[in-house]
């Protein structure tokens, strides 16, 4: 039994012995440690020296060697990148050199001179028996201690400032990068900015300021205590373009030229923009929004603050809030117009059409604004104006629901208007009577058509105008047996011809026609052409003035032989305006032809201005509007002297047209507006009726129009309405 126990313990002992650490053996300095130093195995030597000192705390050379190794390691690492290691070894240097200094004696130097090779001079090396004086060693050690103290002190300052600079700039970068990820454009940032964003911007500025502060301190510290390899300077660049400038993963603070983005300047400017521009703007918008809604709710009139909405365009073009304000404004105007319509009865067809046009105008505008609002009602846009919208809509869903309800209402209104508008126009057009003259029917409505369709003896009314007293003034021509045309001007009252003036050329090869008529205060002005019978090419053109009694007072020749198509009288200024096109009577455009527009003083025919454009198409009417004229027609191609051109969407063939409208100002003749009604389907207008400046009705057809034949192949009717700003607001669905 004992033997068994003994064997167990022996086994265990052997096991333990095999696991016993080697350091149980006594370390000899000269045998185990110094050779390591001599062969350069400093890591092992360092470890062994520490162990040795635990046993031999007064081993003077051990301290010295530890100090040397610490010194070596302190110099090995990068002072900026591994500054904490350098500092640690600097501390060690100070400690070990100090301990060495405390313990050093002459005796030690005598006894262990071989361990102090650093202090050997040439003689010591040559003799092999070194002799070192304590007076040689102490000053060096003291210097080293001082050096490492200085190093520690200065390096800690340098590191602290450098570290802080990097830290703050890194924080700036992250904040700015975060903003660029969150906001697609600078304008978006401004308009969406809330208190959190302002706080972020303020922090961004502070971090940047701190970066500069610490960088400057770092530079000062470096000036006092230079570090080899480090002499960074920094330059600052402004942020001009959001998301292009200032977006970087990091900035290398180790390179000689550090390039910083001036986040503080940008952030502060942004905060200022928000505080001084956006906030007041939103406050004004809130007030405008409230007023518009109140006006709509109470059916009162409200005038949009256009400058305010224009200011908003700067940050958010065609915004949700501006569309909402537009919607409620037009809704209130619509409501008012409806109220007036209910009150006013006993109106004639024209007055009815005018009144109805108001409803169409405001209804159309409201619908347009509402559609735009619905399209813009999304999370981002709601957030932009949340504080404003919250006064009425607690959430985006609430807004959408409300707008859907408005949409249902406006669609209902619009459907009603759409149903009624055709009836209105038809009633208006049908109100023009047919009268008789020499027992031949003479329509008061224009019945113009291509010359080759006009039969012998037929009266063709080129233009017809009704005055305020209900009298009709007509002009046109009549065809004789030999194709010769005789021009006429007439006044019809209560279905009877009051007077008629007829003009016939004496020679059969010449024809006369009156092409256009406009009323003046005391009569009318008509345009007259003398043309060659057959080709009907214009030989002479003139303006003739007739009195109310039918007497021709004046005949003023025109200085061109283009066919005068429309003459209009502006009683505000006493001007007449004339549009002329083509070299033959009612010449269809077979080529890209010049359209001429002139304005002159009615009293003396003195020219005010002359304008022209080129058109492959036809002009349907020249409509006077407030302080100007609108030319309306069909185009395949149209081009202007200022370089603007337009081609119809279906311009694969000349007779596939769309509709154009161009507005000229009177007195100066500037083009103030241009607009086109684009459609992939060919369409053409053949009649224009102005109800008011808000409603100019364009009637026509969808289908192809043959230029030469002036013939439509219509498929369905077309009815457009524009206002004097040439906005095609009806039909309400855009093509």
């Amino acid at each position: 039994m004992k033997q068994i126990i003994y064997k167990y313990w022996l086994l265990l002992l052997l096991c333990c012995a095999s696991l016993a650490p080697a350091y149980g053996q006594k370390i000899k300095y000269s045998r185990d440690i110094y050779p390591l130093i001599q062969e350069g195995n400093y890591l092992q030597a360092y470890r062994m020296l520490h162990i040795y000192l635990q046993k031999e705390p007064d081993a003077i050379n051990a301290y010295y060697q530890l100090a040397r190794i610490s010194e070596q390691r302190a110099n090995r690492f990068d002072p900026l990148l591994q500054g904490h290691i350098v500092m640690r070894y600097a501390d060690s240097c100070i400690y070990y050199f100090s301990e060495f200094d405390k313990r050093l004696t002459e005796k030690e130097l005598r006894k262990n001179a071989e361990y102090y090779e650093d202090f050997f001079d040439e003689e010591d090396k040559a003799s092999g028996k070194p002799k070192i004086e304590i007076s040689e060693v102490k000053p060096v050690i003291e210097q080293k201690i001082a050096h490492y103290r200085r190093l520690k002190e200065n390096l800690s300052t340098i590191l602290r400032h450098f570290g802080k600079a990097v830290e703050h700039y890194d924080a700036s970068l992250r904040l700015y990068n975060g903003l660029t990820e969150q906001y697609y454009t600078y304008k978006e940032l401004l308009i969406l900015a809330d208190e959190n964003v302002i706080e972020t911007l303020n922090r961004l500025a502070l971090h940047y300021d701190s970066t500069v502060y610490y960088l400057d301190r770092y530079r000062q510290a470096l000036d006092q205590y230079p570090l080899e390899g480090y002499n960074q300077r920094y330059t600052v660049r402004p942020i001009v373009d959001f998301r292009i400038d200032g977006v970087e993963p990091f900035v290398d603070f180790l390179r000689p030229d550090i390039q910083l983005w001036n986040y503080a300047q940008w952030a502060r400017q942004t905060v200022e923009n928000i505080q001084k521009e956006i906030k007041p703007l939103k406050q004004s918008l809130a007030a405008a929004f409230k007023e518009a809604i109140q006006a709509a709710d109470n059916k009162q009139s409200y005038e949009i603050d256009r400058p305010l909405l224009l200011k908003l365009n700067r940050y958010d073009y065609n915004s949700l809030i501006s569309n909402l304000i537009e919607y409620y404004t037009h809704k209130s105007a619509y409501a008012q117009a409806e109220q007036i319509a209910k009150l006013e009865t006993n109106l004639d067809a024209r007055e009815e059409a005018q009144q109805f046009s108001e409803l169409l105008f405001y209804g159309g505008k409201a619908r347009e604004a509402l559609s735009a609002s619905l399209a813009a009602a999304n999370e981002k846009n709601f957030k932009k104006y949340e504080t404003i919208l919250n006064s009425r809509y607690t959430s985006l869903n609430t807004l959408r629901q409300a707008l859907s309800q408005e949409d249902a209402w406006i669609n209902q209104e619009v459907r009603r208007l759409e149903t009624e508008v055709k009836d209105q126009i038809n009633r208006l057009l049908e109100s023009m009577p047919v009268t008789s003259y020499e027992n031949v029917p003479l329509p008061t409505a224009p019945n113009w058509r291509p010359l080759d369709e006009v039969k012998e003896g037929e009266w063709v009314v080129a233009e017809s105008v009704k005055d305020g007293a209900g009298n009709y003034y007509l002009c046109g021509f009549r065809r004789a047996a030999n194709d010769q045309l005789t021009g006429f001007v007439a006044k019809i009252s209560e279905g009877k011809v009051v007077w008629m003036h007829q003009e016939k050329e004496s020679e059969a090869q010449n024809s006369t026609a009156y092409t256009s008529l406009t009323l003046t205060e005391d009569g009318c002005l008509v345009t007259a052409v003398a043309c060659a019978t057959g080709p009907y090419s214009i030989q002479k053109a003139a303006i003739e003035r007739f009195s109310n009694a039918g007497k021709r007072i004046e005949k003023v020749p025109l200085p061109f032989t283009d066919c005068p198509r429309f003459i209009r009288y502006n009683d505000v200024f006493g001007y007449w305006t004339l549009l002329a096109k083509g070299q033959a009577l009612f010449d269809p455009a077979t080529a890209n032809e010049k359209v001429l527009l002139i304005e002159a003083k009615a009293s003396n025919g003195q020219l005010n201005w002359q304008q022209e454009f080129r058109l492959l198409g036809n002009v349907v009417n020249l409509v006077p509007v407030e302080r100007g004229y609108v030319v309306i027609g069909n185009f395949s191609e149209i081009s202007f002297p200022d370089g603007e051109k337009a081609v119809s969407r279906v311009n694969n063939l000349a007779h596939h047209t769309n509709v154009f409208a161009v507005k000229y100002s009177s007195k100066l003749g500037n083009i103030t507006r241009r607009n086109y009604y684009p459609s992939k389907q060919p369409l053409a207008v053949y009649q224009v009726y102005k109800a008011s400046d808000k409603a100019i009705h364009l009637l026509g057809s969808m289908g192809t129009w043959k230029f030469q034949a002036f013939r439509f192949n219509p498929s369905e009717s077309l009815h457009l309405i524009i206002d004097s700003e040439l906005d095609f607001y009806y039909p309400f669905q855009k093509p």
Partner: protein
Amino acid sequence: MNKNIYLFLLCLLCLPTWLRAQKQPLPPPINTAAIEYAPTVSADGRTMIFETNRNNGKWELYVSYLRDGRWTNPEPIDSVNMYGGDTDLIGGPSISYDGNTLYFFASFKDGYGREDIYYSRRIGDRWSKPKNIGPVINTPAYEGFPCISADGKTLYFIRESTDEDGDILTRGDAICYRIFAAEKGKDGQWQKPYPLPMPINLGCEKAPRIMSDNVTLIFSSIREGGIGEFDLYLSRRNEEGDWSNPVLMDFASTPERDQFASVSASGDLLYFVTNNDIYTVPIPPKFRQNRNITIQGYIRDGESRQGIGAYVNVYDAETTEQLMRLENNPSDGRYTVVLSEGKRYIIEVEKQGYTVYFFEFDLRKLDKYQEFERDIELFRTADVHVNAIDRLIYEPLNAQILVTKQEGEQQIARQQTENGRTTLKLPIGASYRLKVQADNYIDTSFVIDLSRKVRYNVVEKDAILRPETKEYEIVVKDLETGEGLPFTVVLVNRSRDEVITLDENSSNTPGYYKVHIRESDEYELEVRNPAGYAFYSDKNPVISAKDATRKKVIELAPLKIGTKLTLNNIYFETGSAELSDASERELKKVIELMRRNPTLKIELAAHTDDKGSEAFNQRLSQARAQSVFNYLKKFGIPEDRMVPKGYGESQPIVPNDSDENRAKNRRCELIVIAI
């Protein structure tokens, strides 16, 4: 006695056996009757390449994939295996942590001596032909068993250990080696290798494998304290670059030769070779490498969606020191990055001529291994949306944009805006000057600098154009005294949505305004709510920069009994008393006047010229005055404040001797009769 000894020995044996029980050989088809050697696993642990002589005794490299928890049938890497001759030795594979490079050694004839280190690049699912790593590392002697660090900067490998006479050292029948390391310089080239110091190299080491944390080294060694022949040891390098005392990985060591440890980035499973087979064993916590994460994905061209070759740079976010610069695989764009705990990293993906992409990972408090999949798109061009905007009203403009390169001034694009906007596709890598021109506007130009790091491939720039303007003077004064009146003047542009408001803040002198109006446009002028004065009524309240004298003088009559204001914009249909709709604006002004001055009483006087009979003209003028009266009444003005009166032709203001004069005589007036 025997029973007790056995019991004791059993206890001693039990401990390592208990641990040994977790070592598992990989099942077929990985391990076979042949020798399987030197496994290497990718960072995600799903690809293993190893060396085997299963093909008629020829040493070759095989690859297998972990799918659904099983290793697939190993396939030979033919591009490597068939590179040399039948008798060439190929072995010691080590796949880089990004999975794109395979290092191995071979005795190909085109080497520098015996066995050299080669590498092969991944092309899709295949590997390229081997390339020799070069004479800085390879010598006429033996180089073998390479292993690359996760940051791609250090290559560990072995050379034979020799004595002073150059004889190869052995321990028993095992050849001894020394572990060397070579580092890449700043120029990306390998520098001269150096042997790892004690306590790594003690005389008989081999099979170094650096773990994905770049600081944990597992190697095989025959040294005091070991269990078998070659045992597995682990040492870690501290931040000062010193290696810790190697620790015996006793959980894996056997009495046999334990070699070729390989650990995936997750760090939990050790693959190693013992007894000519590949084994796995879970790694106890104390032997695990530093925790890390793996980020993988594809780097693609954002437009073509094809994989592209790019660089992945990893920086220490605190110091901005570049820690790694890795290349992804250009054949498919695949990249892998392994990051160790303890730092905050910025990862930047860049390729010349493309946008740059960067993101951050904060691993200072990483608690476990994670894998992240992140696909990255880089773009060759930036879509620069340019909005041409009117500076004053912020309306979109039709403008032309001319783009030239700043360097060389070569024009590269000319585009027209549509609805004020256009998109320019500009190549990354250059700086561009954009000149924006629009009719009646002053040109503007700016620089878009895409020559530096560009993060976003879609940016927006507003080109704000100032219209060409001319100065115009507007004077508002009292008709009688000539004194300037500080009333608000509003100019409404007839061509566009522009409203200019001039008020007391716009001028130092009351009633005297200088305003800049567009050269090309006309403006309608309005004087708003002039308190105590009649409103401004003008037949032609339009001003333009083309006017002969750019000055408009507006004289307002003070409201007092007898003040007479001609309503210049009241129109009637020809020969009738029906108001034309063009009169609406003027009538609204009258309404406004009456509302603002609730005690004002007025006469609405209508006059005609001398055309027609006197009686007719009298009737007509009375009817016209009445029309105006009716309109105002409709809009809420009380009847008792208005007196409609027709004067016929009895009060001409000028002789009726011309059309112009007659037009002047045909007028409506507003006369104040009480206030």
